[in-house]
C-alpha cells in the first residue's frame, strides 16, 4: 500500500524476533552461529520439499486448479514433516558439536547448554520461516495499491504479518520443547510437535476467513509458550519469586 503499511507490517512480523535477537543473541557469537545454522537447516528443508512439489506440478496438468491446490496441500504437509526431520537432524548435530565444544573450551564443560541451543535453533528456524513468508508480501506492500481487485480481503497485509509473527514464535517454542523432549528421550513430544505444526498449517488453509485462522493460531501459540516456559526450567514459583523480588526491591529502594 504505502510506506506506512510497509513499516507497520515489517514491525509486526519481525519486531519480536528482532528484539529477541538484540537482547539475547547478538552479544554471543556462538549463539549467532547457531542461529544462522538453524536458519540454514530450515532453508534446506524448504528447498527439498519445494523440489518435490515442483516436480509434482510439472508432471501434472497445470490447468487443473483443484489438482494443483491438492498438490500444494500435499507439498506443504511434506514440507512440515521435512522441517521436523531437519529439526531433529539439527539436534543431533548440535549434540555432537557440544561434545567438541566442551573439549576445547576454557571452562569446564560446554559453553552453551542444550536449552540455550534449543532456544536459539528454534529462533533460527522461526526467523527464516518468517522471512520467506513475509518478504515477498512486504516488497509488494510498498507500491500504491492494496489487495482486493480480485476479491481478496483488503486486510491481507496485516493478517499476513500477524501470521508470520505467530509462526516465528511458534518455531521458537517448538524448538525448545523438541530439544528438551529429545534430551529426555520423550519421543511422544516429537509427535506432538509435529501434530501441532500440522494443525497450524491446516488452520492457515482457512484464510481468508481470518477469524477462524488467526485466533486459533494465537491460542495455540500461547499454549506452546506456556509449555516451553515450563520445559525450559521455569515454574510458577519462579514467577512469584520474581514478583516478590520486585516488590522487595521497590520497598528497599523507596
Amino acid at each position, binding site marked *: *500500500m504505502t510506506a*506506512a*503499511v510497509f*513499516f*507497520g*507490517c515489517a*514491525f*509486526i512480523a519481525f*519486531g*519480536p524476533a*528482532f*528484539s*529477541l535477537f538484540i*537482547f*539475547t543473541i547478538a552479544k554471543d557469537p*556462538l549463539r549467532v*552461529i547457531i542461529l544462522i*545454522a538453524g536458519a*540454514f537447516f530450515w*532453508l*534446506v528443508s524448504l*528447498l527439498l520439499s*519445494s523440489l518435490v512439489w*515442483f516436480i509434482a*506440478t*510439472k508432471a501434472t496438468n497445470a490447468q487443473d486448479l483443484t489438482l494443483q491446490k491438492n498438490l500444494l496441500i500435499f507439498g506443504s504437509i511434506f514440507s512440515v514433516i521435512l522441517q521436523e526431520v531437519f529439526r531433529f537432524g539439527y539436534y543431533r548435530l548440535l549434540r555432537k*558439536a557440544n561434545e*567438541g565444544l566442551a573439549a*576445547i573450551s576454557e571452562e*569446564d564443560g560446554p*559453553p*552453551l*547448554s*542444550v*536449552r540455550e541451543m534449543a532456544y536459539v535453533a528454534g529462533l533460527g528456524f522461526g526467523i527464516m520461516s518468517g522471512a520467506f513468508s513475509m518478504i*515477498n*508480501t512486504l516488497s*509488494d*506492500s510498498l*507500491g*500504491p*495499491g*492494496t*489487495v*482486493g*481487485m480480485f476479491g*481478496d480481503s*483488503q*486486510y491481507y497485509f*496485516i493478517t499476513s*504479518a500477524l501470521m508470520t*509473527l505467530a509462526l516465528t514464535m511458534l518455531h521458537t517454542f517448538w524448538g525448545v520443547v523438541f530439544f528438551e523432549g529429545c534430551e529426555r528421550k520423550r519421543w511422544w513430544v516429537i509427535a506432538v510437535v509435529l501434530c501441532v505444526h500440522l494443525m497450524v498449517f491446516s488452520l492457515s488453509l482457512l484464510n481468508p476467513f481470518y477469524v477462524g485462522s488467526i485466533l486459533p493460531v494465537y491460542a495455540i501459540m500461547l499454549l506452546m509458550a506456556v509449555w516451553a*516456559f515450563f520445559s525450559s*526450567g*521455569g*515454574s510458577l*514459583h*519462579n*514467577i512469584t*519469586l520474581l514478583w516478590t523480588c520486585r516488590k522487595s526491591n521497590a520497598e528497599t529502594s523507596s
Partner: protein
Amino acid sequence: MTGRGPGTIIGFPHKRKLVTSIKLFLFFCLSDVSCNSVAQKIYVELNNTVPCVRLLNATHQIGCQSSISGDTGVIHVLESEADLEWPLSKGPNPPYMVLLESSLFTKSIMMKMKNASSRVAGVVVVPKTSPPEFSPHTTCPNENTGVYTETYDHNLAHCNTTVWNPRGNGLSYEEFDFPVFSLKEDNETEVIKQCYFDHNRVVNGSGLQYPLCAMQLFSHMHAVTDTATCMRRSSMDFSTSPVMVCDPLGGYNVCAFIRPYNSTAFGHKENESVVIAAARLDSKAFFLEDSTGAEGSVSGFVTLLAAAQALCEATQEAPRTRNILFAFFHGEVFDYIGSSRMVYDMKNNMFVIDLDNVHSILEIGQVKTCISINVWTYKCMDIRSNNNESVTNLVKNLQSSTAGLNFSFVETDFSQPLPPSSFQRFLRARAIPGIVLADHQTDFNNRYYESFYDNAAHLNLTYPSNLSPEEQLEFVTDTAKSLTEVATAVARTLFKQAGGNNSQVNKINADPKTVTQMLYGFLVRSNNSWFQVLGSSLRCVFCLSEPNPPQYYVGVAKSSHQANALTYLVQYLLANLTGTATNLTQSQCKKPDELPNESTYLYSYLWVQGMVPPNSTQRESFCVRTAVRLVKAVSPAFDLGDYVSKEYSTWTKSQWKFIKARIFLVASRDLEMLTLGVGVAVLFTSLLVTYFVSTKADVLFSSVREPNNAAY
C-alpha cells in the same frame, strides 16, 4: 569436529548452497510455474495504451508529462461536462484520474482540467463514436514556415485572409503537466469500468467506501523547455556513449525520376528541366501513434502513386523534353521537414538537381470530397501561385486533361493564398510556377484534420459486409473510382507538361484496381496479399502481426538507416509500379554493378517477395530495377546546429524510460495508519518484554540448571 575451533562448524559449502537455493527459488518463479505473487493480486497491467508524449521546438514544449514515479488517481468516469465538478471541486478523494469518452474529449473540458491540475492526476480517453467534427491541430497549420510571412505580405500572413482549419482547437499544441493516455475500446476498458462501478460509485447519500479503484500512469519525459535546451543537455554528457534526451523528428522522402540521373553527381544539370509532382506522406493526431490521416495525406499520395503508374506505362518509349520527379515528402506536418530539406539540398548542391532545373511543381493536397454519390459533376479546385505564362500553360494542360472524365478543375479566386503545402517551401526559396490540387475552395472540407478520426470511414471506404478480406482488397469503392479519375487527369497533365505527344495523351489511364488496393492496404488492412507480394522479404515490415494500418506520424530520424513502415511501403509500391522486373538472382540483385547493363548510379535494385504460384508454397521472388530512392529528410536546423531557427523546423521528441499504466485498489488512510500504529506498538512491547525477561532470566529459568552453564 574435534581438533578444530568452534568457528568452523559452518564452512563455505553452506554459503554456496544458500545462494543456489535462492537462485532455484527465483528460477521457479520466473519459469512457467504460476508464481502467485502478491503483485498479481494487486495490479492489473494495461497493455493496449497509447500515450501523449512531449514534443519540443524552438520556443515551446507541447504534450504531456507525468511525474517520475507515476501519477496515481482515483478513477472517475466522466458522464458530461457538468460532471466535471466532481473531480475538480466536489470530490472528497483527490487527485482523480478522469476517464473520458471521445465525445467529451474537447478543448473546454481539457482546459478546465489543466487549470485544476492539482486535483487531476491524469486523463484517459476511450475512443468510441466519432464526434461530428474534431481537429486538435491549430487553425493556421505551419503558419511560420510557409511562404506567407510578415515580410512577404502582411495581409496573407497568419491566415489573415483565409483560416484554413477553422475547426482546429489547438489541443495537440497545448502543454499538460499530467499524463493523458488513450485506450483502445476492448477488454481492458471493460475491466476498468467494472472496477469503477464496483467500488467508486456514490451510493445515494452515503459517501464513498474504501477501498477505491485507482489508476497509475507512467509517462515521464526526459526533455524540457525547448529543443535548444534538450540538445544542449544531450551533448553535455562527457562519457564515451552520449545519452540523448530528445530526438529530432524526421524520416525519408521517397523520390523517383522518370529518367534517372547519376545519383553521385550533385548540383546543377545543364539543359535539364524537371517537373516536380509532389504529395505529402505523413499526418499526426493528438496521440501520435494513432495517426491515420486518410483525407489529409493518404488520398493525396495514393493519387500520385496511381498517376506515377499510369505515366510510367505510357512513357516507356518516347523520351520527352522534360523530366518528371515524383516526390513524396515526409514530416510535412511538423513545419515542412521533408520539403525544406529538399530545398536546402538543392540550394547547397547536395541533390542531383538544383532549383534552376525545376520547371514547375504540381502538388496534390487533400482530394477526398470531389466525389458525390450520384452522377453530379465534381469540382476540384486548384489554386494559383505567382502567375506566369508557365502557370497559365500548366492550368491549360490541367483543364484539357479532364476530357472524358467525370469532373473538372476549377480555379480559385486570385485573392486566395495557397493552402499549407510543400510547394510553399519551394516558393520561399524561389518563385517557381506551380499549382496545388485540393478539394476545398476556401477553408478545409476535412472535419477531422490531423485527428484520429480521419480514417477509412471518413473517406467513405465502405465494403459490402459479406466479403472476405481478400475480396475486400479487390472491391473497387466509389472513393477509389473518383481518385482514379483525378490520378488520370494528373498523369495526363504531367505528360503534357513534360512535352509529351498530344495524340498519346488519352491512352494514359490510371488503374482503379491499383487505387482501391492501395486504399485498402493503407487504411484498412496492411497485412494483405498484394502488399505481401510487393514487399521485401528482408525487411519484415509487411509481416505486421496486427492487420492495422501503418503509423502515419513521421517518427524520429534514426541514425541507423532504417525508415519506418510507411516509407518502406511507399518505396516498394512505387518501385513495383514504376520499375521493371529483371531476371537477376538474389546475389546479383545485391551487387548488380558487376553486370554489364546494370548500374547502381542510376537505379536501385530491390528484391521483391513475389507471388506464391498455385501449385507450390515457395514465393517466386524477383529483382526490380527502379529509379526510386530514399532521400534523408531531417530538418536542416539540426545539421546547421541552429536549434532556435525560425527558418527551418526544429521539432524534436522527448525520450523516456518506460511508459505503462495499471489499475488497482487503494486503501483508506485510516487503515494504513492503524497498521503502522499496531506495528510500532508490537515492536515497543516486544522490546520491553524481551529486555525485562532477559534481565530476569536467571530468576525465571532457575530450576534444574546444568552445572556448567555459562552466565547469561
